[in-house]
């Protein structure tokens, strides 16, 4: 199936070329980092992790996009998600790869990374994070590939894959939990030292991940014949809305605990982030942007009228992504390191080179998504699954009334358009 990624329009190749240019440019900076060391970053004695690890944290959430589609389909037999599953799984593959790459570029001696395996250390959460992310990557490659391949071959999914799918659903929760544990178990880091951190990670992952996926799929719809079923979109949006509500609720719990208890350690980080401390106000505008974006997106997502407005939806999702990124991808990490163990503030802001290397990894992720989505949409098109109808509906929209009954016959026949999806028993 991989060869399908080698055939595409000139627009497809232009996009691939664009990504490769970014990858090459970022790669050059990475070589520079490997030659001179991590001094090219703004990390320091006090802020020992920076943009790289914060992106790992955020992208683990993107991996959750898969489970929010897979779970309703497999656990609740929610049919409209049927042809969306593969995209969730493929997105998770890209997310896991990006996570792993962010670890590799972050470590000082990458050539020794196999020490993690040669000297396995179960008491280190980083060891478990490696296991869960690699495991989730493997499970998604396996389940995604096997299912898509069997679809393409016009066969039902093999029975042996089912346990792996179930495991992958459960496994998805572990990657957020373990990544949260990475932070959550450190003494003296008050901002992270909260039992609700793992729950916050799950909540933000379950809104941000599907939000990104939904946006990417909206783009996919524009450039391919793929069309999401309306019901699946509505359900996913609902999930995003609820998860964001929970996410913000958890955040307010943190605020309450810190300020009502009045424990200085718990207050300091929040105060630094939202008001500034010791003359350092670097993050204040960003954190308030987070709050404003969060409120705006909730306003756009909670009332059903607004939520189901497909014109508005991309904006709401965009705001949600910005909000969660600022919260989890920026504030969480810097706020955790500051105030430092010496109760001082050591500002951190990613350098241009850090951003270039990060851009490289994002480009690699985008490349993986592009290639995998290309393959998946190609196969869907060949099979006639979830294809766009002239009326704008998807072939999976069983209640499509826009064009009347003759819709799926004449108009789209000239194209390689699919016939009506036969009532296939679920595999």
């Amino acid at each position, binding site marked *: *199936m*991989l*060869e399908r990624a080698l055939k595409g329009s000139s627009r497809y190749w232009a996009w691939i070329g664009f990504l490769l240019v970014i990858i090459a440019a970022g790669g050059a900076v990475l070589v520079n980092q490997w030659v001179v060391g991590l001094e090219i970053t703004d990390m320091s004695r006090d802020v020992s992790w920076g943009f790289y690890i914060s992106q790992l944290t955020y992208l683990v959430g993107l991996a959750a996009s898969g489970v929010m589609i897979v779970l309703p389909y497999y656990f609740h037999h929610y049919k409209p998600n049927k042809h969306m599953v593969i995209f969730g799984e493929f997105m998770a593959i890209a997310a896991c790869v990006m996570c792993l790459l962010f670890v590799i570029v972050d470590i000082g001696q990458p*050539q*020794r990374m*196999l020490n993690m395996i*040669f000297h396995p250390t179960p008491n280190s959460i980083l060891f478990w994070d490696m296991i869960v992310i690699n495991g989730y990557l493997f499970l998604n490659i396996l389940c995604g590939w096997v299912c898509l*391949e069997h679809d393409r*071959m*016009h*066969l*039902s999914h093999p029975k042996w894959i089912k346990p792996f799918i179930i495991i992958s659903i459960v496994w998805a929760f572990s990657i957020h939990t373990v990544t949260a544990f990475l932070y959550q178990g450190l003494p003296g880091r008050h901002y992270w030292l909260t039992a609700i951190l793992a729950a916050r990670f799950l909540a933000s992952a379950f809104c941000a991940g599907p939000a990104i996926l939904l946006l990417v799929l909206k783009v996919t719809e524009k450039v391919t014949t793929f069309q999401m079923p309306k019901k699946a979109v509505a359900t996913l949006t609902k999930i995003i809305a609820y998860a964001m509500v929970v996410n913000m609720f958890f955040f307010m719990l943190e605020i309450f605990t810190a300020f009502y208890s009045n424990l200085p350690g718990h207050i300091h980080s929040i105060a630094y982030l939202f008001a500034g401390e010791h003359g350092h106000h670097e993050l204040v505008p960003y954190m308030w942007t987070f709050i404003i974006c969060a409120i705006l997106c909730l306003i756009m997502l909670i009332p059903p009228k607004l939520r189901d407005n497909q014109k508005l939806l991309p904006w709401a999702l965009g705001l949600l992504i910005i909000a969660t990124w600022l919260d989890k991808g920026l504030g969480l990490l810097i706020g955790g390191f500051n105030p430092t163990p010496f109760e001082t503030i050591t500002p951190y802001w990613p350098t241009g080179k850090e951003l270039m290397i990060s851009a490289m990894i994002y480009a690699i992720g985008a490349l993986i998504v592009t290639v995998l989505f290309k393959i998946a949409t190609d196969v869907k098109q060949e099979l006639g699954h979830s294809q766009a109808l002239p009326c704008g509906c998807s072939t999976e929209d069983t209640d499509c009334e826009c064009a009347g009954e003759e819709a799926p016959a004449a108009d789209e026949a000239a194209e390689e358009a699919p016939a009506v999806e036969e009532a296939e*028993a679920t595999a």
Partner: protein
Amino acid sequence: MNALYSLVFVFILVLIPLFAVGAGHMEFGFGVCIPYTAFALFLIGFVWKIIGWAKSPVPFRIPTTGGQQLSYDPELFKQNKLDNPSNGFQTVVRMILEIFAFRSLFRNTSASLHETKGGPVVAYASAKWLWLFAILFHYSFFIIALRHLRLFLEPIPFFVKGLDFMDGILQIGAPVMYQSDVLIVAGLLFLLLRRLVDAKIRYISLVTDYFPLFLILGVALSGIWMRYYAKVDVVAIKELTMGLVTFNPHVPAGIDVSFFVHVFLVSTLMVYFPLSKLMHMPGVFLSPTRNMPNDNRFHHHVNPWNPDIKPLSYEAYEKDFGPAMAEAGLPLDNPENAKAPEEA
């Protein structure tokens, strides 16, 4: 059975130097004479075989066309320049991809039959493992061969040093483990297991298919043994190898017998190479279905032995069918033919 024979052969090949050098002290023979001979035989055999191929002409242009031809209207029908090349440059690109990326093997699928609720299904699953492990094996072999230049060149050129460094970048153990060593063994084991496990492939596999696999595996494992377990004296070995390439052959003391096993297996490989299917290495360059452009409709190709065969002439044809043709109103070149043939 074929696999067992091959394995036994390779074991015997290991035992020969083990006894000859270990007990018989034939260091010079196994360190100098045999490698020289083998290298010479390799070169001669290799060239001789290619010349043998080259002697046969290429009467016709018969490229396999794996895509759209060059059309009279290249705008409307876009040519697939890689799979259906129409000029030398495109053909060279096709060959490069074939040789360096194993492009045809990348297409590989595996067919299977299924009885489903909807009826019988012939399914073609994507099957790229052979491609992947073949790539791993061949590239590892290539890197390992280049890396060995450190023993044959003095001073060692930068690219050999760089390759050595990159190959050991993961800093595992001392001396550092080469990644290519692991990959070549993985590649070989896959190729071997595939032959043993897949009934179809086992059915077509000959002794000559297993033997090179075991032999190369023996070469790789003896090399690994030398480096990581026996920890042979590399500098002494370099004196020997440099002696070979400067035509000043001698065998310094203190070289472990495992080195002679390794060299003997490599020598066997070199001698065996031109006699065997391993000649697919140069052969792929000469494959007439890949190394020619599909340009016969607009470029004349010469068959040096084109036989002088003419069609049955129209004259004979008209003579044969003349009366009937005339009756049917078909024009005749020779009106004489319209008459019914006289009884001769």
